[in-house]
């Protein structure tokens, strides 16, 4: 089979592209694939994670922005670096730390799909993350307290309640 682009070289890459449910088959040679940027993993200039992400984000916007009464996500813009949500969907990368805040309303579905989760539970900066550490400690204590209450161990639950209050007070004073 000859390459459908140049009709000269033999087609070595065969793939199917599905856009909005429409299926297109490609049979092209490596040279034309490189020129067209339609590459697959395992080759230089390959199909990158960013183009994959960008595909997911476009899908996001085309399905959700059609609901009436809501401003489309394409109108979102980061006030710090100026990146728009449309640019973000195209690049698959944020422009600055504040983008996370300005695009926040759109990020949960993306993170859910990429990571299966939307919140960080790992390391916290040592110097600046003290507050979050205490917050997490309080959450853990609350869970533990609930367990004691369920098991009707009220004395232990009261001890934990006092610890929680103490930590919360310290946080407010800070």
């Amino acid at each position: 089979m000859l390459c459908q682009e140049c009709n000269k070289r033999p087609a070595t890459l065969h793939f199917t592209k599905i856009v909005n449910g429409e299926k297109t088959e490609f049979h092209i040679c490596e040279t034309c694939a490189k020129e067209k940027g339609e590459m697959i993993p395992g080759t230089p200039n390959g199909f990158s994670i960013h183009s994959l992400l960008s595909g997911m984000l476009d899908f996001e916007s085309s399905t959700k922005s059609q609901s009436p009464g809501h401003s489309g996500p394409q109108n979102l813009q980061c006030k710090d670096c100026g990146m728009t949500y449309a640019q973000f969907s195209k690049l698959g990368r944020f422009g600055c730390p504040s983008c996370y805040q300005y695009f926040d309303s759109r990020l949960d579905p993306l993170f859910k799909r990429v990571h299966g989760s939307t919140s960080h539970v790992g390391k916290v900066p040592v110097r600046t993350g003290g507050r979050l550490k205490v917050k997490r400690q309080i959450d853990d204590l609350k869970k533990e307290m609930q367990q004691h209450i369920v098991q009707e161990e009220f004395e232990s639950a009261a001890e934990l309640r006092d610890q929680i209050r103490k930590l919360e007070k310290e946080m407010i004073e800070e």
Partner: protein
Amino acid sequence: MPNIRFTEKPLSDWMRGEAADSEIVISSRVRIARNLQHLPFPILATNQQSEEALQRLTDILQYDDLGRFGTFHTLKISELDEIDKQVLVEKHLISPNLANESRNGAVLISDDESVSVMINEEDHLRIQCLYPGCQVREAWERATVIDDAFEAHVDYAFDDRRGFLTSCPTNVGTGMRASVMMHLPALVMTHQINRILSAVSQVGLTVRGIYGEGSEAVGNLFQVSNQITLGQTEAEIIENLHGVVLQIIEHERSARERLMNESMLRITDRVMRSFGILSYAAVLESKEAAQRLSDVRLGVDLGILERPSTAAMNELNVMTQPGFLQKSFGDKMNTGERDMYRAKLIRQKLGTTL
């Protein structure tokens, strides 16, 4: 002139160490991505802003915090020539991305080359720790201490809910990518590799060729790494990866055992032929060299061959790459010349003269 001692010898000092399971696991690596608060990510930063990031991050070298990991040397990417950049990529000390696209890009490399800190790559800061064999826990322990040393002096972009904020959404949260490079010839030969690789992807891990994203697995070398960075703690990610790697090691070992029991003559023949070709070929393409080197490595591991040593094999893997070949023999070469010099270099290394 920048200090380019790192491009002169093929094998980093850290690779010489003996380590557990090193007949199957070549190396372990942990990379963490961090960014400075109040500055755009490198992709959008102006020249001045990326210069500022570089300045603030290299300033940290004046404090003692990093000293316990050896002396660090700063290389600015713009001051390196193309071949030196390529050699640093081949030694995994910098990423292809930093070599090609970075503005005000730099790398801080420790004496023994086990720590490399990339500045202005996709993120402002990428701390990378390398260990021989299966030591992914150790690599994380070191990376997190170095991370703390930087954080003591600069404010990171961090959000209570999203964690460490990175340029690419695939790194957000822990910003950590832990990976283990494995040599899995027996799983490839017994056609079990695809089944194992697809199982690995079910548990939040991914497998790539040795030069990372978009490259194929040459010479039966596979890099297993975590895919997920949000919603799991670093310890969970490391333990998950470690557990899966141990299982793959077991599968590879039993596949090797079976090959030796069931087709010892065939394997011995294959190993000896590859050793023969490496010893006497006048022209060697990179793909063939990688495959033959893989056979010889397996032959040494199985006791079919006595030499070369594992260190020598690791050295050959780097030396036969295009960048290093050009570095050793001088001047830019075309593919044909490289194939000739590649064969020559391997003959020299194996001590074959005709």
